[in-house]
């Protein structure tokens, strides 16, 4: 598969370790080769090395031809979910031993008496307090008791801990106590890996900061070991090019930085998918996009404005109540904001106490899988429903590698959904698909509200096995009339890695009100942040040109949620400060109709990102109109909006040339997925070979 990218004669390779597969993509001179190998959980570097070999062989390249490698992995996330990190000790402020256990003192489900609250990564015995206290301005209220720190370090070493986290109240304002405590630990225990909160996550809110710091310490030995073994393995095969790690926030960093702050890698795979969508949006020149990735167990949506995936600074890992907000551990790191919904091809359907169809979050998984796989699954899944609606050809599903069986699907659907509602299997299937589409649309709508955004004028980029199947109907439900199905979506995250800039984001809290704005302090802080980010980027940019973005997180005094406002990347002048205040009002009015009269505005924190320039997408010419493609056959398909059964034309994607156009209802089949072109939609193949769907009227 080829696609025009920035002209580059050196080869670049990307590897993404997912739960099941490790994906590798190689690009050279505008051409791309890919490989998909099984993930090797015990020694993940083996899967990567294998994938690299396969991809290089396909490309006819040698390891020495590679100029740079980019890597992302879910290892850190898995270590936290499976509790397989290093035994970790936590040294904190006297009186605050249980910040990690108390959290925000709330239940994530109001009516369930049996909810489980996530257990901290560090048990109480190994959370040790020492005398010290700062106030909110960083003034010392109680000096650090150094003897207690040394005693704590000795105790934790004797207890068999392998990593140390240090977090003090208000430590992000004045890191002196945390830094001194780290020195003392190092004196007592020189080889201990130490994470301190003022470096890992220097922002207000002690639970989130401590949770992040502890999680960083918890995964650090494991990640450092893995990265060292990977580097060694690559060297042995002759791949000596620099390796960059994909960050959750969408930038790249060096192995050295990644080894110090491995917590910043947690969501790197999905981040690659979002960057892939953002790159596609850039190629198309679409400024507002929703990335919609639906797989076997979950769907993920991400808002992308001006070719940049939405950023967030807090993320929840290891949710206990599946997909329930508040049931996981908070991590405060730069991250691409995504919503994950328990809706995929394997999601199971049933009838609830109110006689309503309920889909997910339980999933059939890959074994036994949906009933139609014929492997003994007897509960109806979304894939069964799609089959019963006539959306799949049982013989050619997944490139003909997995024959589908309509009979068990119909039996399961009739038994678990149809019977309770007095519906035949096909109408029950319609209900299941409508419900899962509605769930995804509802989650997308609420996400837009939480983000202060709308779907007006937005397009959807659909990928994953289910995205192109369900995309048009989700579009209709959220009021979007344009959708794109790119090619290469099967290894989208790995391709996304190749599009990511070398970038690093530094966030610091410095409370400011406009009525008493301290320009010198702000400029000083921003200068330090800029220098820090530039230093990290310089390690990997090899002198490439960089750009800097500065953001202020602002709100009306007293409000709880900040809005990100872009600032000029320079020392602020008096006029800049006035402009920044005005920019806030403009942004606020854009989100919410009513401005609030007479309120002062406060800045909670600042972010500085330094990054290399993103490859510009080359404009792609509109293709000449191609002759109308011929359907490979017709199929009886039930439309989920109207319930009508009609003949839908089926086309083969690889027979459709750029410029070809078909009118819905139609299905465009390929090995990995099927793109549904609903009634009222048309689909055209663009100059890049992407499918562009438009709803008329």
């Amino acid at each position: 598969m080829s696609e025009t990218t920035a002209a580059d004669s050196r080869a670049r390779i990307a590897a993404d370790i997912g739960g099941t597969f490790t994906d590798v993509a190689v690009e050279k001179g505008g051409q791309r080769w890919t490989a998909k190998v099984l993930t090797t959980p015990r020694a993940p570097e083996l899967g990567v090395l294998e994938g690299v070999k396969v991809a290089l062989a396909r490309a006819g390249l040698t390891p020495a031809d590679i100029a740079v490698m980019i890597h992302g992995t879910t290892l850190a996330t898995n270590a936290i979910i499976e509790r397989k990190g290093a035994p970790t000790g936590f040294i904190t402020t006297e009186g605050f031993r249980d910040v990690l256990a108390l959290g925000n003192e709330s239940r994530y489900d109001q009516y369930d008496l049996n909810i489980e609250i996530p257990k901290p990564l560090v048990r109480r015995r190994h959370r040790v307090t020492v005398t010290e206290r700062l106030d909110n301005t960083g003034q010392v209220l109680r000096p650090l008791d150094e003897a207690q720190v040394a005693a704590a370090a000795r105790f934790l070493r004797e207890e068999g801990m392998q990593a140390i986290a240090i977090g003090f109240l208000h430590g992000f304002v004045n890191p002196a106590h945390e830094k001194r405590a780290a020195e003392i630990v190092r004196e007592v225990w020189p080889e201990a890996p130490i994470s301190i909160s003022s470096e890992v996550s220097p922002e207000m809110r002690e639970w989130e900061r401590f949770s992040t710091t502890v999680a960083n310490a918890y995964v650090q030995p494991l990640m450092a070991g893995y990265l060292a073994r990977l580097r060694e393995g690559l060297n042995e095969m002759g791949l000596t090019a620099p390796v960059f790690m994909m960050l959750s926030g969408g930038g790249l960093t060096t192995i050295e930085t990644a080894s110090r702050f491995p917590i910043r890698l947690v969501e790197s795979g999905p981040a690659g998918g979002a960057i892939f969508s953002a790159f596609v949006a850039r190629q198309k020149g679409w400024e507002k996009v929703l990335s919609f990735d639906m797989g076997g167990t979950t769907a993920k949506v991400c808002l992308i404005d001006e070719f940049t995936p939405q950023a967030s600074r807090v993320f929840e890992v290891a949710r206990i109540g599946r997909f329930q907000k508040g049931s996981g551990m908070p991590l405060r790191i730069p991250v691409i904001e995504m919503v994950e919904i328990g809706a995929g091809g394997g999601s199971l359907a049933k009838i609830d106490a109110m006689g309503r169809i309920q889909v997910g979050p339980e999933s059939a998984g890959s074994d036994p899988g949906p009933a139609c796989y014929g492997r003994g699954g007897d509960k109806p899944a979304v894939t069964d429903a799609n089959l019963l609606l006539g959306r799949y050809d049982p013989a050619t599903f997944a490139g003909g590698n997995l024959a589908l069986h309509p009979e068990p699907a119909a039996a399961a659907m009739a038994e678990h959904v149809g019977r309770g509602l007095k519906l035949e299997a096909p109408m029950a299937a319609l209900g299941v698909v409508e419900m899962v589409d509605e769930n995804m649309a509802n989650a997308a709508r609420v996400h837009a509200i939480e983000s202060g955004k709308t779907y007006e004028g937005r397009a959807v980029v659909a990928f994953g096995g289910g995205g192109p199947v369900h995309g048009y109907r989700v579009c209709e439900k959220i009021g979007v009339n344009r959708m794109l199905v790119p090619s290469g979506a099967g290894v989208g995250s790995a391709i996304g890695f190749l599009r990511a800039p070398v970038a690093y984001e530094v966030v610091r809290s410095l409370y400011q009100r406009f009525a008493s704005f301290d320009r010198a302090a702000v400029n000083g802080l921003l200068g330090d942040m800029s220098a820090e980010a530039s230093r990290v980027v310089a390690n990997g940019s090899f002198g490439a040109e960089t750009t800097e973005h500065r953001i202020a997180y602002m709100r009306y005094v007293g409000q709880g949620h900040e809005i990100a406002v872009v600032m000029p990347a320079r020392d602020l002048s008096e006029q800049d400060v006035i402009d920044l205040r005005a920019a806030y009002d403009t942004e606020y009015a854009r989100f919410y109709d009513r401005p609030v009269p007479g309120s002062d505005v406060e800045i909670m924190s600042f972010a500085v990102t330094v990054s290399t320039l993103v490859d510009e997408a080359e404009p792609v010419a509109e293709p000449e109109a191609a002759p109308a493609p011929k359907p490979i056959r017709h199929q009886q398909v039930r439309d989920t909006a109207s319930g009508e059964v009609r003949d839908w034309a089926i086309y083969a994607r690889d027979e459709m040339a750029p410029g070809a156009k078909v009118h819905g209802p139609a299905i465009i089949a390929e090995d990995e997925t099927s793109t549904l072109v609903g009634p009222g939609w048309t689909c055209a193949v663009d100059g890049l070979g992407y499918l562009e769907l438009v709803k008329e009227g």
Partner: protein
Amino acid sequence: MSALEQIQRQIQWNRLIAVVEEQAQVMIRTAFSTTVREAGDLSAGVFDLEGRMLAQAVTGTPGHVNSMAESVGHFLAKFPAAGMKPGDHYITNDPWLGTGHLHDLTVVTPAFHNGKIVGLFANTAHIIDIGGLGMGPDGRSVFEEGLYIPIVKCFDQGKPNETFFDFIRVGSRTPVELEGDIYSLCACNDAGAKRLAEMLEEYKLDGLGDLAEYIFDASITATRAAINAVPRGTYVAEIHSDGYEAPVALHAALTVREDEVVVDFTGTSGLSSRGINVPPAYCRAYSCFGIKCVVAPEIPNNWASLLPFRMEIPEGCILNAPRPYPVSVRHIVGQLLPDLMMGCLAQAVPGRVNAEGSSCLWNPPLRGGSQVSGQNAEVDDFEIITFNSGGTGARPMKDGMDGIAFPSGVRTMPVEATENVAPVIFWRKELRPDSAGHGRTRGGFGQIMEIGTKGNAEFAVNAIFDRVANAPKGRFGGGEGAGGLVLLDDANGIALRSKGFQVIPKGRHLVLHLPGGGGMGAPTERDPALVRQDVEDGLISAETAKAVYGR
């Protein structure tokens, strides 16, 4: 009805629940009071033109939910739907027409489609200050408790009612937050109304009538089925609150009969002369919540799913406070009601209830500056409340939860954030060892909080604490959780009153020991590994492990 219409009804029901969730999220994003945006002390819902609730946001707290459900009918009685116009917003904080105290604002907004009114959106939020004595029990009538807003129009066809806002601005210690919150409540109802119109357009519906009937039918059928799965009979229980001037006994006889649950509160103590009295809507709200958690937790809240739960509250009892009795901290008594309901249901479905927990929030409302110290004030004026909780009761198969709100659904704020908005210092906030009730499953641990100010200046607490003299009880052989303590300084500190305004002198700290939850089952049946773990973690002493658990 065709098969397709049947499916579409289900989709529309799901959509309505998503619409009210969007409504709640807009409120959280735009609200000014920490009580709303940090603590989540709010609720949101959509109603038909008869004032019957169709759906309610999952986000929110139980005390508001069910009482707000009753509130919309009162708005319609004063302002009939026929006279409402687009852009109108109505507001009240009347404890008897809203959610039980002056600190809760309820806003109702009509929703239109094709020029016709089709439904109403309502929300409730706990705001930080409404003037008067402030959030506390000391008032002797509702008139002392703050600014009393009857049901009035705060926006008339999109135009703010300036006279109303003038009154609001001068009546509160935190006028900017209050005004901002009212804007936020109106904006969130608007967001809901806009989304509802889009749904009606998509499905070519004229109104909510048929959908309402479907939701109500399905809900009442499911609720009745859940009730009919509980053994019939009358179950009696009692629970005690420390009260203000005298202890308070709450007495319930819960009858499960075909298709309904009826609770008779005869035998409950009389009214208090202070603000711990409970308006009846709030009593119904928390009683209903307690029963629903046990009997029908999965059924969404709406008019019909709440209908089969009936409360008979005698006149003159503390759970049926008439106007103008003081009601500011009605949660102190009201939040014991779920424990009381579970005391009854423990006899019917023992495997589905919890032991008693800390139950009532332990929120310290703190005030400092000139309103406490006059001209001698050493700190700027401040008014702040944090939301804190003791341990919950043990569960049949799991321990209780440590320092977690139940039945209230609120969250607490970070200490760092609190210290940034007020000159207070939290010297200690951690679990309280040896506070959990023992048992096969033990209760959740309470916590200890020690609070002072910057420079150790004088400040005051408006104490609203309970379960000091009446510790949470265990069930089926489980032990009591530790009762609460309100102290001036720690370690042999002087005991303060659990209720009422008290000054913490210069140089001293307020120390709170929050209660632990009750245990369940015989302690000797507890898994020895769990006992050992609690000892290693410093949560129970080695002596207790030996004496109580025999380990």
